């Protein structure tokens, strides 16, 4: 039985989740200016409106304590002047109503402004990313792109809605309070303001330490979430290998770390409130002791004392908020740096200034001495000359890295050649409008992506303008109609990414229907190797034939059955064309292709 007792060694290191993102960055004025640039479109409308209403309510908030504390008590109540008290009450009432109106406008203005800026920023980033090249996406995980479009933008939201405008008001408020206090009584003001440095200290130093410990918590939490996510997705593997106890060990350690960091962070946070209150208390004691003394020695009036008491309570808010904004800015530095990094990424290819329209292409493709290097040290294609006639099916054969995908990428003009020219119908691709070329070329992918939505919507992705009937027609032509009809809701069946509703073969037929609907002149086919049962594969072969009819097709093929049917087979090795011709010709030539076919059968024959 002893072998059933799993070893009690703690498995705390069995998984690794790294956090590679800086949470905050130091100040950078250039970056701030660039961020503020996004407010520019509103600098004549929403921005000034928000600032004016903000200032208005700030001034009112500064006036009221004076009116109640100083004026009402000293000039009306103490002297028993009822008439004046009534006037005063009316003035205060009017000010409150004004404040009410200003607040309504301020809340609306600030939020509308902030949301528009964020909307613009998000849109700019998203649109920009859409036009970046394959290379960009190849070198980054989907997760790291998502973080920028979603989290980083969201983290700027607060800064744009309240942050920047609060920065203005709070400064006005703080300076206003100090000015008023000095105006009322310089002596008392000086005494009471001793607490100011104390408050600033709490707001910056203590807060920084609290902030760091919460960052620790966030990091722990993100590790924990990464593991949870993986644990759920990999549960079948875990259970197959009976690793539940070991994983539980790992998780418990992770959870314990998280608990500890959270405990420390809450503890530090709990210091915050009491410290603020204590510093306020110090102020109050000074006010009471020194204030009473000043009153008794007739240097100030009671109203002044009361006004001081009111303002003392108002100190903390702007200081605290300024501290918060400072935090926000540090986070915004990190977020905006990541966002700008993407925005500064140039698309690989762009339209020339005088790019010509390129409507109905026939599909005759020529490569003339094409050299291509992704980066200077690695040459992917070396002086390739090629001709693909309109309507032909051409198969590209070769190992990974032989240059098959590069040829396909150059035809769609995802890249421009380093030297030489790629021509369609005799026209250099660099001279014509990019959208026109891409519109008429479709890539049929190995692993097609199913978007969440109905089958109908998924096929229509190929051509958003198509009618329902056209969608059905396209599905019928490629033979996808059968399985779609068999689904619970037919074309209206909801599918989603990774949804198990569709098998690999069905997804492929769906992709064919999409392409059929897009009706391109040139098709680039990256052949699927996914698991497809024999009957379905027959259907796919058949559908493919229909799809390719009357179009130029370039196939990055893996299956002999597909390759064999091609009009021209191009065998590539290390960026060079080794041989080309149709199946019969190449078999007779007894070259590389022949070798390839032979190994395939040997593995079958064993």
């Amino acid at each position: 039985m002893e072998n059933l007792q799993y070893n009690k060694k703690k498995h705390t290191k069995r998984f690794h989740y790294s956090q590679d993102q800086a949470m905050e960055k130091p100040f950078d004025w250039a970056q701030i200016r660039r961020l503020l640039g996004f407010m520019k479109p509103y600098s004549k409308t929403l921005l000034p409106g928000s600032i004016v209403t903000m200032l208005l309510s700030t001034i009112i908030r500064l006036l009221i304590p004076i009116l109640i504390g100083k004026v009402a008590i000293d000039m009306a109540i103490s002297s028993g002047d009822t008439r004046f008290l009534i006037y005063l009450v009316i003035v205060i009432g009017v000010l409150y109503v004004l404040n009410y109106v200003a607040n309504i406008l301020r809340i609306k203005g600030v939020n509308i402004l902030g949301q528009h800026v964020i909307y613009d920023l998000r849109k700019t980033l998203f649109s920009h990313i859409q036009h970046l090249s394959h290379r960009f996406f190849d070198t980054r995980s989907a997760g790291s792109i998502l973080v920028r479009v979603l989290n980083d933008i969201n983290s700027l939201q607060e800064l744009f809605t309240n942050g920047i405008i609060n920065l203005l008001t709070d400064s006005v408020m703080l300076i206003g309070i100090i000015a008023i206090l000095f105006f009322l009584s310089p002596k008392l003001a000086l005494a009471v303001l001793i607490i100011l440095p104390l408050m600033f200290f709490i707001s910056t130093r203590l807060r920084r330490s609290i902030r760091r410990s919460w960052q620790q918590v966030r990091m722990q939490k993100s590790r924990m979430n990464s593991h949870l996510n993986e644990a759920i997705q990999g549960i079948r593997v875990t259970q197959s290998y009976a690793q539940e106890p070991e994983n539980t060990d790992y998780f418990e350690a992770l959870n314990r770390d998280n608990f500890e960091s959270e405990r420390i962070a809450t503890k530090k946070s709990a210091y915050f409130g009491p410290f603020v209150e204590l510093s306020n208390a110090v102020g109050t004691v000074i006010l009471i002791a020194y204030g009473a003394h000043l009153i008794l020695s007739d240097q100030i009036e009671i109203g002044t004392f009361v006004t001081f008491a009111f303002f003392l309570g108002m100190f903390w808010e702007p200081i605290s908020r300024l501290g918060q904004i400072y935090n926000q800015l540090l986070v915004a530095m990190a977020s905006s740096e990541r966002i700008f990094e993407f925005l500064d990424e140039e698309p690989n290819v762009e339209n020339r200034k005088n790019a010509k329209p390129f409507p109905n292409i026939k599909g005759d493709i020529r490569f003339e001495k094409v050299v291509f290097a992704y980066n200077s040290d690695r040459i992917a294609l070396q002086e390739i000359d090629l001709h693909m006639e309109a309507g032909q099916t051409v198969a590209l054969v070769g190992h990974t890295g032989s240059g098959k995908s590069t040829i396909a990428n150059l035809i769609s003009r995802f890249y421009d050649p380093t030297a030489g020219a790629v021509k369609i119908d005799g026209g250099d691709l660099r001279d014509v409008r990019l959208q026109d070329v891409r519109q008429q070329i479709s890539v049929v992918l190995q692993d097609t992506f199913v978007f969440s939505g109905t089958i109908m919507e998924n096929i229509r992705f190929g051509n958003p303008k198509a009618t329902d009937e056209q969608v059905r027609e396209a599905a019928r032509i490629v033979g996808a109609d059968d399985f779609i009809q068999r689904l619970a809701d037919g074309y209206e069946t909801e599918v989603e990414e990774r949804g198990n509703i569709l098998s690999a073969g069905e997804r492929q037929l769906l992709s064919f229907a999409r392409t059929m609907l897009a009706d391109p002149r040139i098709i680039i086919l990256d052949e699927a190797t996914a698991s497809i049962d024999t009957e379905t594969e027959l259907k796919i072969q058949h559908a493919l034939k229909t799809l390719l009819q009357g179009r130029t097709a370039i196939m990055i093929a893996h299956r002999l059955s597909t390759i064999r049917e091609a009009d021209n087979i191009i065998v590539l090795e290390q960026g060079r064309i080794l041989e080309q011709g149709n199946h019969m010709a190449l078999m007779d030539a007894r070259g590389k292709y022949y070798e390839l076919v032979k190994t395939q059968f040997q593995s079958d024959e064993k």
Partner: protein
Amino acid sequence: MHIFKKLKDFYWPYRRNFYLSLLFIAIVTAITVVYPIILQITIDDVVLGNQYNLIPIISAGFVILMIIKGIANFLQQYLGDLFGVQTVFRMRNSLYQKLQRLSFTYYDNARTGDLMSRLTADVEGIRFFLSAGVGQFLRVVLLIVISLAVMFAYSIPLALVTMVSMPFLAVVVYRFDRRVHPAFRNIRTSLGVLNTRVQENISGMNTVKSLSREDFEIDRFTDNNSTYRDNYIFTSKVWAKFFPLMELIGNICMVVLISYGGYLVISGQLELGALVAFFSLVSYILGPLSNLGFIINMFSQAKASGERLLEVLEAKEDIKQLEQPIGTRQISGHVTFDRVSLQYAKDDDMALKEISFDAPPGKIIGLVGGTGSGKTSITQLMTRFYEPTSGDIYIDGKPVQDYNLRTLRQHIGFVLQEAFLFSTTIKENIAYGNPDNVSFDQIVDAAKRAQAHDFIMELPNQYDTLLGERGMGLSGGQKQRIAIARALLIDPSILILDDATSAVDMQTEVKIQKALKEVMKNRTTFIIAHRISSVKHADEILVLDEGEIAERGTHDFLLRNGGLYQRIYDIQYQDQKAIMRSAQ
């Protein structure tokens, strides 16, 4: 309350912190109300009463009270938070253990996103409520009650007059809460939609680019983006409507206070200090009152979160182990199915119908058939990922149910179509099945046998290369070979190859096939495949069709049986014949 009773196990051990936290909250609240009283004494007795000698006493008393308050405040917050954090720590461990134990049946119907949101947002919701909810509620109630009491003690008429505005405020707060929560829900929903849109766009970028649908995508995104913005702005309009109104009501209260209170002071019915104290006391009531709705909402959300967590915690674990399972050291790998039927869910079709076969140790069994014919189901029953609806499965002559689950599964190795690797080093991934008792040499040996060693050595950190989301990206074939090494390292008596080579290209397949041949030696092997070439050497081939064994036998027999197998063979090999002919 029912929900919280069920969750009692998690928080009950830490109740001491909770009670202490409540105690300190009461202390803090009581002291808070002292501040206005001190203000009043200073004005009325010290200043107006000319008793300057009271100042030191007042100041000292005030400082002492404030220190006590500071300490109490720290403790109430820390202990309250700790209570929540501790409870959630315990809860997370239980949830994780539960997730590890739940069967495939559960996961077939679960969605990762949904589970994740329970494990993160809902757990967090509970923590927040436990840390702050109850305490906040107590604080608000105490503050209002004590403040009111003090106000009435100072002046009954003035207290009554200022109270007039309270019902208005309560109504506004209530209406605000009713409006703002749906609005917030809309923001969250539209943010969710926006996030999904971006997520799909990035994950499906290849598809977008392949059909040059970038502009279409931008349009769709812009729609979602503006919906989100508009929802947000709508919500801020709700705020703009109610928040200034609440403030206005509070301010009207102040105006009433100053006019009526001023009158009372002038007519000598109230001391000036008491009036000043009133100002503070009123703000103690107005602030918390606007918060009450928030606290109540927090409670109802915590209840909903608790419910969703209980759904996970109480989910049925349908694979149970015997009290005293067999824990043999060795399994030789004799698999027998006796009239086994399987139905995944009540309304589903039968996935397997009366399947019987016998696979002696060391034999190779091929499973062939279309998608959904039941090939994978057979293999998953051996490891008890599912329970058969009827019939019996024996391993080495004993029913699978009698085995210790861990022993059983550790003797069965799986290589699946899509290799799932974890975010850790290659080394750890290969050793996933037995992390404790393998040496590095054994890991390398397994990798060599799986034809993975060579490419691993070419990676920057070799066996220490990190895989996963932020780690190195491997090709499908490379991942598959690591998965094979992983299966090999547990030295299973039964090996299941579920379409293990279909997702790789031609050249890689040749390599993997070679690796597999090596691996199958001395093990009972089940091969699931679409290609005849993968199963033709099997000792017995089962051809499945809609959950039934349509025909069975060796390759040579089936080839002449005139059934499904022969048909598949013809389709696959007519092609080859044609190529061969052309090569002659």
